[in-house]
């Protein structure tokens, strides 16, 4: 199992400048298979920019970004041709957005939202696609009777679960999540967190989760990186950083929450 010891994604010296403003400053990050990394910090800390850089949604100003594919070969994401990058996104990666409307097609049925991802990777048999989509709707606790409904009639929590089903149906190896529980009621959050926790463990997903909620980080992540002003000020085992934070800013962040 030598593949276990190699990171699935590694970034070195990753920076992003907007003019003279530094959004991400010289970031080094490694993510291993089966590992969940939380990136925490306040808004404006650069955590969403970092997620966009790691997931190739934005172009870094400098630095390297290497992904290890299903076959174990390293892929330089910065020089990857666009067609291959898009193929990778469809087949090996997932992206769960904070606003489900950005991750779903709102005028396509729930079943269609899940099924079209299968079609994109070559599934052609309609009955098989519908069966697989229906299975995933059940897995994320959406009644199969709702398969032909469009997500614009779904609640926020249902939309978010549908977005997760749409991402998981292609069995990704690496999933990026941007505040996946943001904007949801606490009871709805709990259901979603439980679902994510189960999926990550069951499928040995590698995941990068951006969150400002340290309780979400504690529940879902193995490791955490605390960001401030575009830099990672502290990184380590999640419970160690949250229970014994060393950096002044981490101490401030941890002491500012009621209980994590």
């Amino acid at each position, binding site marked *: 199992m030598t593949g276990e010891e190699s990171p699935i994604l590694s970034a070195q010296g990753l920076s992003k400048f907007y003019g003279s403003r530094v959004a991400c400053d010289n970031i080094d990050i490694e993510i291993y298979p089966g590992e969940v990394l939380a990136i925490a910090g306040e808004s404006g800390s650069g955590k969403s920019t970092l997620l966009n850089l790691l997931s190739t949604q934005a172009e870094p100003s400098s630095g390297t970004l290497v992904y290890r594919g299903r076959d174990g070969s390293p892929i330089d994401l910065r020089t990857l041709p666009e067609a291959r990058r898009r193929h990778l996104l469809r087949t090996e990666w997932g992206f769960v957005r904070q606003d489900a409307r950005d991750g779903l097609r709102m005028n396509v049925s729930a079943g269609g939202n899940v099924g079209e991802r299968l079609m994109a990777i070559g599934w052609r048999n309609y009955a098989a696609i519908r069966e697989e989509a229906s299975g995933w709707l059940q897995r994320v606790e959406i009644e199969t009777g709702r398969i032909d409904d469009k997500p614009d009639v779904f609640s926020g929590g249902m939309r978010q679960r549908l977005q997760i089903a749409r991402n998981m149906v292609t069995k990704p190896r690496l999933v990026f999540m941007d505040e996946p529980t943001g904007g949801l009621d606490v009871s709805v959050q709990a259901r979603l967190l439980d679902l994510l926790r189960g999926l990550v463990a069951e499928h040995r997903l590698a995941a990068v989760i951006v969150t400002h909620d340290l309780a979400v980080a504690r529940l879902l992540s193995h490791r955490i990186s605390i960001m401030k002003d575009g830099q990672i000020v502290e990184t380590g085992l999640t419970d160690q950083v949250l*229970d014994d934070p*060393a950096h002044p800013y981490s*101490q401030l962040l941890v002491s500012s929450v009621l209980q994590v």
Partner: protein
Amino acid sequence: MNGGAKTGAGVLRLENVEKTFVLHLRGGARLPVVAGVSLGVDAGECVALDGPSGTGKSSILKMIFGNYRVDCGQILLRENGGWTDITTSGPRDILRLRRNVLGYVSQFLRVIPRVSCLDLVAASAREGGMPAPAALERARELLSRLNLPERLWGLPPATFSGGEQQRVNIACGFASYRPVMLLDEPTASLDVANSGAVIDLINECKSRGSAILGIFHDPQIRARAASRIVDVRAFAQGSQQHA
């Protein structure tokens, strides 16, 4: 005094461990916790940490578990015939040690929303490598030994009483065998019958060869569970010079 580090073929060894919290939000105030902690625990023995509250007993357990950092010294765990120092181990190595070597029963249950207590305990057993059916069987056995009413097994423990949550927590902690067990007041808030059940679990671990380091508030329970007592007042910062 006690707490000598010179033990034979131990499975857990602390050498000169020191810890101070630095509170940056209080102008860098330094909060000394312990210094010069040296002790060893052998396979099959239960060592109790004793001393007034605030003397760093829980902190010592948290440092061994990799939950707190250590300023200096070594915390060595026997792993595959060699020694691994958790104070210099990275996050992934610490997680491996927790899977294979280290068990920890804390005072309070960290409740996971919507997960039933039976599933919670079974998941702990699976983490230790037990196959799913055996893990479920082990979970049932532990919950019934700890007298948790069967009607509660399918419910998430969020709404349970303190004592019920503590028993779920203990069941999780003892669900799978670990060579090193850390127990932080496992019998706090338990009645006599349940304390007895916990002592039985501790003694089973001992006879299977676990090295146990624990904090037991109740002196009677301490006397029944522990083979040896270490007074942590010896590790108060500053006391070494005067000892």
